[in-house]
């Protein structure tokens, strides 16, 4: 079941998610699927990006859940502090 779901998630990443984030020099890797929870890692322009949370929760998670309703949650395992080329950088206001 988990392997099947993993394949479906990977397919979504390849065909919809990565083509979208590539516009900002980013990419997403599937780390694992456990108990219907999808673990992802973000790289390139997404790693450390000030808008990474928006991309993940309002973009990627929403898309995955719409296409695969059995997914309970999408979790980001990225070490964003190690990002060296984030698309947007935060500043205090």
């Amino acid at each position, binding site marked *: 079941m988990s392997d099947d779901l993993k394949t479906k998630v990977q397919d979504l990443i390849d065909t919809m998610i990565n083509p979208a984030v590539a516009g900002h020099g980013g990419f997403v890797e599937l780390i694992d699927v456990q108990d219907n929870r999808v673990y992802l890692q973000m790289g390139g322009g997404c790693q450390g990006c000030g808008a990474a949370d*928006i991309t993940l929760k309002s973009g990627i998670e929403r898309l995955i859940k719409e296409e695969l309703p059995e997914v309970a949650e999408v979790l980001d395992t990225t070490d964003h502090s190690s990002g060296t080329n984030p698309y947007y950088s935060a*500043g205090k206001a």
Partner: protein
Amino acid sequence: MDRLLLLLPTTTYRTEDFLDAARTLGVDIVCASEKPSTFEAHAPDHLLTLDFTDPDAAAAKVAELAGRRPLNGVVGVDDLTTVAAAAIAERLGLRSSAVAAVTAARDKYQMRQCLAAAGVPIPRFRRIALKDDPFLAARGVAFPCVLKPLALSASRGVIRANNVDQFIAAFRRIAALLQRDDVEVSGDAAQFLLAEQYLPGVEVALEGLLVGGTLHPLALFDKPDPLEGPFFEETIYITPSRLPADVQQAIERVTATACAGLGLGEGPVHAELRVNDAGPWVLEVAARSIGGLCSRTLRFGTGMTLEEIILRHALGWPIASLARERRPAGVMMIPIPRAGRLHAVHGTEAAAAVAGIEEVAITAHVGQEVVPLPEGWQYLGFVFARADTPDAVEAALRDAHARLAFEIR
């Protein structure tokens, strides 16, 4: 499920904490930024691009969205978004301060005019056109004074001048700053600066929530590092304040009067004040919550975050308690010591190992160009501490900071 619009600039530190709060509350969130998300085409009802500098256009665009799927609240997370959020709220009949009040709070000159009219103690001030001759402009100013842009935040462009030469240098430096590519100001904010009396004293920050025109103080922060210029870099915030109770009460009273004088009535406020023998003086009142990651020092009731309180208020939900936890807490905003490119960060594990330290968050990335004040507006990161006393919090923050080393080349 209630649906709330968050205005999240791509440069804000506040995204993660607000999205976490929305997740905890189970709110359906629509995210709007000033630049398009890579997923906007896939989720047009949840991702939006808005021009925050054009509040009327932003309100019209959101009204169109709300016509399809109604919104129950709107929150602008930082200074860049407060006026647009108020305009959207006004258009949709949602909970917010009036647009005119929030607009006044975004312009340091308008703010001081409102505060002076309301009898709030503030430094003497003057607005000066950037096209004026600074030598002549300096004639009308008493020294020492502080020069500052009308609309920037985080102490950006705030410079003390003790004499005419320093005034002219500061004037030119602010004029150059306003021309930078990373500064987006228009109208009066691009054409004037403010010169005001320098006030000696200690500085504090008051975090509050306005509900129906009543200010509910949430936390009063001491700023133990002296802020005497020439630049005014904020570093350590500690709460609860160690000032005497009667002084704290006076700070709350003056801040409440300032909010009323501006016409602010709903939502978060962040006020900066100087305190000396004459009492508290208001320097700024912003219609937003504390900046950076600093809100992570705050917990309310049984563990509610500041962002949860703000979202609940915007939605008109009940808030069980606005009482901050009793344990002292603090944050250090790690300053940028010099300009250059961040090459490496050392000592984060040693810093995190200091007793009382809860988190060391390095937010600048390796390879990033870092710019110190007064031109810069970012921090290298944030250190958070909790301990039994405010003194112990401060000691932990200083110890942790001393263990960090930043290679900037």
